[in-house]
C-alpha cells in the first residue's frame, strides 16, 4: 500500500503532499522536513531508496526521483515492489509532462488542483489503479470539461439572479 506521495522542490518547499492515512498537519510538515533533510544530503547518481523506517515508522520504504528542481517521493510498505514504485513515479511524471507539455516546477506550482486530480486517477486509497498515462489523461480531460461546464452553466443564472435579487 502506498502511504504518501510528496513532491518537493530542491529547496525543501512542498509542492504536493498527499497522505493516504490521516496524519495531523503538524506531523505532515515534520515528515516533509525529515524527508527533505535526508534527500538533500544524498549525492546524484546514487540509488533511489531511502530507509524510511525512522521517518515514517515500521515497514515503511521510500523511493524518490529527482527531476530538475523537483523531488518526487513515494512512501509505501512491503506490499509494493520498489522498482515498480520507481516506474510509477515515471508514469506520474510522464503524465504531468503530457498534461502540461514539458512540465516544469511552475506548472506544478500553479496547477495544484490538477496535480491532485492526476494523482487520484493513478492511486486511490493507497492502491495503484492505473498505470497507463494515456488513460489518466483521458480521464483528466473529461474531468476538466465537466468542471468547466458546471461553471459556465451556473455562471449566467447566478449573476442574473444576483442582479435581480438586488
Amino acid at each position, binding site marked *: *500500500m502506498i502511504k504518501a506521495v510528496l513532491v518537493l522542490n530542491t529547496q525543501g*518547499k*512542498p*509542492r*504536493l*503532499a*498527499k497522505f*493516504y492515512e*490521516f496524519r495531523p*498537519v*503538524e506531523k*505532515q*510538515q515534520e515528515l516533509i522536513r525529515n524527508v527533505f533533510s535526508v534527500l538533500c544530503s*544524498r*549525492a546524484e*547518481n*546514487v*540509488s*533511489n*531508496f*531511502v*530507509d524510511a523506517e525512522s521517518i515514517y515508522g515500521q515497514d515503511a520504504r521510500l523511493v524518490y526521483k529527482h527531476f530538475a528542481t523537483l523531488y518526487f517521493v513515494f512512501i509505501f510498505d*512491503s*506490499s509494493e*515492489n*520498489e*522498482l*515498480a514504485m*520507481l*516506474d510509477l513515479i515515471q508514469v506520474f511524471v510522464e503524465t504531468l509532462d503530457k498534461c502540461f507539455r514539458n512540465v516544469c516546477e511552475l506548472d506544478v*506550482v*500553479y496547477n*495544484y*488542483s490538477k496535480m*491532485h486530480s492526476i494523482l*487520484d486517477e493513478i492511486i*486511490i*486509497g*493507497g*492502491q*495503484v*489503479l*492505473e*498505470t497507463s498515462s494515456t*488513460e489518466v489523461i483521458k*480521464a483528466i480531460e*473529461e*474531468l476538466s470539461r*465537466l*468542471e468547466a*461546464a*458546471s*461553471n459556465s*452553466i*451556473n455562471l449566467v443564472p*447566478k449573476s442574473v439572479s*444576483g442582479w435581480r*435579487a*438586488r
Partner: protein
Amino acid sequence: MAGSSIMDNLFQRTLEDLIKGFRLQLVGESALISKAVEEIRREIKSTDLDIKSIALQKLSYLSAIYGIDMSWAAFHVVEVMSSSRFAHKKIGYRAASQSFHEGTSVLLLITNQLRKDLSSPNEFEVSLALECLSRIVTIDLARDLTPDVFTLLSSSKVFVRKKAIGVILRVFEKYPDAVRVCFKRLVENLENSDSQIATAAVGVFCELSSKDPRSYLPLAPEFYRILIDSRNNWVLIKTLKIFAKLAPLEPRLGKRIVEPVCELMKKTGAKSLMFECVRTVVTCLSNHESAVKVAISKIGELLVDPDPNLRFLGLHALSDVAPTHLWAVLENQEVVIKSLSDEDPNIKLESLCLVMAMVSESNVADISKVLVNYALKSDPEFCNEILGSILTTCSRNVYEIIIDFDWYVSLLGEMSRIPNCQKGEEIEAQLIDIGMRVKDARLQLVQVGRDLVIDPALLGNVHLHRILCAAAWVVGEYVEVASNPFELMDALLQPRTNLLPPSVRAVYIHSSFKILVFCLDCCLMQNQEHVSSLDSSNLAVGYSGLVAGKKHTETRDFASCEGPTHDAQNEGFSPQNSMDSSEQLAVQNNAVRIVTQDQTSIATSLEKNNFTLESIVGLLNLIELVLSPLAANPDVEILERARNVLSFVQLIKAEISDNSNQNVDILDKKDAQVSAIVKLMCDAFSDELGPVSLNAQGRVAVPDGLVLNENLDDLNAICGDIELPSSSSFSIGGPHFGTTSDASPFNLPKKEETEPLNESASLLEHRKRHGLYYLPSEKNEITYDDYPPPNDPQKKTNLNDESEDLSKLAGQSLSLKKRPNQTKPRPVVVKLDDGDVVPISVKKPEPRDDSLSGAVRDVLLGSEAKPSSSQSNPSDKSSGTDKKNLSSYHPSEIKENVIGAEMPDQANPNRKSKHHGRHKERRRSPRKTIEGGEHDQRENKKSSHRHNRHKARQGSSSPLNVAPQTPVIPDFLL
C-alpha cells in the same frame, strides 16, 4: 448585503492569485499566510457557494503545503460538498478527504451525501465520493455504505468499478461484515478479463493476504491461474507477493509455483518483475535448490549492474538469502567487499550487513581487520556504522564467536583510537563486561586500559570519555595483573584529567584509590615475606623494620636484604621518573608472563614490583598533591571520592611518619593498625564483580516500610531547586547494571548525594520539610565499598538463591567447533543461567483484524448462509470487545480445518493453536465432526499434542454451524 457579495465575488483572490502572492513574496511568508487565512475566514462564511468554495480551496492548499490547521472549517466543507455543481463538489470532497478523520464530528452528516453521489449517474461524481470514502471511512460510514459500494463492484463502467475495488479494502478494514456481502463479487473481479479491474482486485488481495495469509489459502487456485495466464507485470508482481505470503503456510503450494516463478524470472524483461521473482524465491522458496540457484545467478547479474538501484536490491536479496544459503554470499564475496567502498550509502550499508553475515569464529579476526581499515578510510557516519556492526556481531550471544579474547580486547583498544569513533558507550560496556566475564582476558584488558589512560592526547576527545572511564575502571579493578601500578597511578592522576566530565573523573579517582590500596597491601605482604624468609623470631621487629624503611639502625641482615630492593626502586619505580623506563619494563614483564603463562598470581607481580616504603611515600605524596584541590570540587562525586582517598592517605601517612620516633611496643601496635586498615580496604575491593542477572533486583527483598509504587514524580517538585548534574549517576556497569540500579530504591539517596555540598543546609531543610531521609544504613557499613553500587544486589542474589550460580561455564563452542589449528583454548566466559542480557522479545504479530479474517473465512468456506447469530452486533465485534467472537475466528482454526481434512500426514508447525486453542469452544466447524472418524487412525500415526488436544475438545464442541464444506484447495494444485 447582496452588494457586498458581488464585491467579494469580484475582488476575491483565487488560489492562483494566492500562489502568485507567495511567489512574489512582497511580505514575509508567515505574514502572507496569516493574512490569507484571515481573508479565508471571512470569505468562507459567505452564502455564495462560489466564494465559499474558492475560500475552501485556498484553505486546503494552505493546509497541505504550509500545514495550516483547517479542522475549524469542517462544516463549511460539508456545505461545499453538497453543492450541486461539480466544481464545488470537487473542492469540497478534496477538502474532506484531506482534513476529515475519525474524530471529525460532522462526519455523521455526510453519509447521505456520499450515498447520493455514489449512486450518481455521473461517473466523476461517483469517483469523487469513492476517493473521499477511501480516506475518511469509519465504521459507521462503512456499515451504511457497504450496499452502495457493493453495487459499484459490478458497475459496467471500468472507471468506476476499479475505484470501487480499491475502496472496498478500506471498507473491509473498518467493517469486516462487509466481507459477507462483497467478497464473492470481489473474487469475480479477480477473474475479470479487463486488466485494470484485475490489477485493482489483485492489489486488494495482496493487502488482505499480507495481514492474514492463512484465510486466503483457499483462493490459491485463482492466484495460480493469474500467475500462469497474466501478462501484466503489475498483476504478476502482486500475485507473487501473495504467493510469498501463502507458500510458507502450505509446502505443496511452493512445489507448485516454483516452476512458473523460475520461468518468469528467466523470461521477463522487466527488472521489477524479475526482482520480485528473486525475492519470492529467496524468502519463501529457499528450500527449492534449483530455484535458489537460478535466483542467485540473477542476483549475481544485479550485483554488477551499473544501476545503483539494482546493485542495492541485489545486495538486499543476498542478505535475505544469507541465513539459509551462505554459499551464495561467499560466491559473491568479492563484489560484496568491493561494495563497501561504493559511493552510495545504501549499498555500503547493505554490503556491511552481508560482510557481517559471513563472520564466523574462524574469520572474525581477518574480517575485522579489513573492516577497521575501511572504517579508517570512510566518512564518519559509515565509519561508525562499521564499528557498530563489528561490536554488535562480536558481542552477540555473550561473545560467542570470539575465541581469542586478547585479540578482541586489543581490537577494542584499536577501535577506540580511530579518529571518528563515536561508539564510546558500546566499547565502554564491552570492556567492562569482558573484564567481568572473562578472567583470562584481564591481563590484556589491563594492558589495553593502561595504553588508553596513559595517553594524554586521548583525554581531549569527548567521544573517548566513556571508553576512558571503562579503561580507568579496568586498571583499578584488575590492578593485580598490572605490570606497573605506579605508572597507572601516574596516568590516572595526570593533569589533563581535568578535561574529563565529573562522572568519569570520579571513576579515575576511585581507581587510583584501588591501586593505592593494592600497592600498600603488596608492600605489607612483601615485607612480611622478607621477614619470614629471614626466619626472624619476632614478627613485630620485622614489621617495624619494614615500616621504618630506610632506618639503618636495623639489623644488618635485614638491611642487606632490603638493599637490592632499594636499587630497583631507584632505577625504575620512582613515580616521578617512571614514565620513560616503565615502558621497557612493562614489555619485559609481559614477556615473562607470556612465557610462564602465569597471569593472575599476585606473587609474581609482587616479585616484579618492588614496593618499598619510599615508593609508597612518593605515591602518597603524589596523591595528596593532585587530589587536595579536588576536596572542594563542586561535583559531589569527585568531592566524595577525593576526600575518601585523601583521608585514607593522611591516615596511612600519619602512621608511617609517627613510628620513626616511637618505641618498639607502640610501633607494633601502630603497625598492626596500618595493616588492619589496609587489610580492610583490600577486602573491600577484593570481591570479584560479575555480571548481574536482569532479574536480580526482583529477588531482593523489599525492606519494610519502603513503598516502591509511590510516584516518584513528586520528587521532581521537591528536588526542583536542587541542581542535578547532567550525568547524575556513575553507572559504571553500563547496560548490565542499568536495570538493577535504575529500579533500585537506593537510587533515591544517590540522587540526593549528587547535590553540591554548599547546599547541604538547604538539603537538611528539605529533609525536615518533606520527611526524606537516606535509606537505612544497613548497607553502608563498609563505608568505602559503596562503589560500584550494583555489587550489593549481586551479593544478595547469591545469598538468596543458590541455583543462580553466577559461574556457569560456557565452553560449548569449544566442543562444537574445535579447530585443529587452534593454539589456545577459548577462555571461560561467565554467563548467567537466566540470561544476563536483554532478551530480544520476539513479538508475534497478533492478527489485529481477527474479525476480518473470520469473515473472509466464513465466506470462503461457504458458510455465509449461516445466520449471523454470532455477529449480530457488528460494531461491538469490530471494536474488539466481544472476546468470544474474536477468539473463535482465530486463524489457527482454519488451519486445522484445512489441514485436518486435506493432508492428514502433514506435520504442521502450528504454534498459534497452542495458545489459542482453549478459547475455541464457541464455534467448532463441522469439519471437526467429519474428521472424527479419521482421528483414531491418524492418532496412531503421529502423537502430536495438538491432535490430542484437538480430540479432547471434540466433546465440548457444539454444532453451531452446519454448513457443508468443500475441500478448499483443489487437488490439482497440490
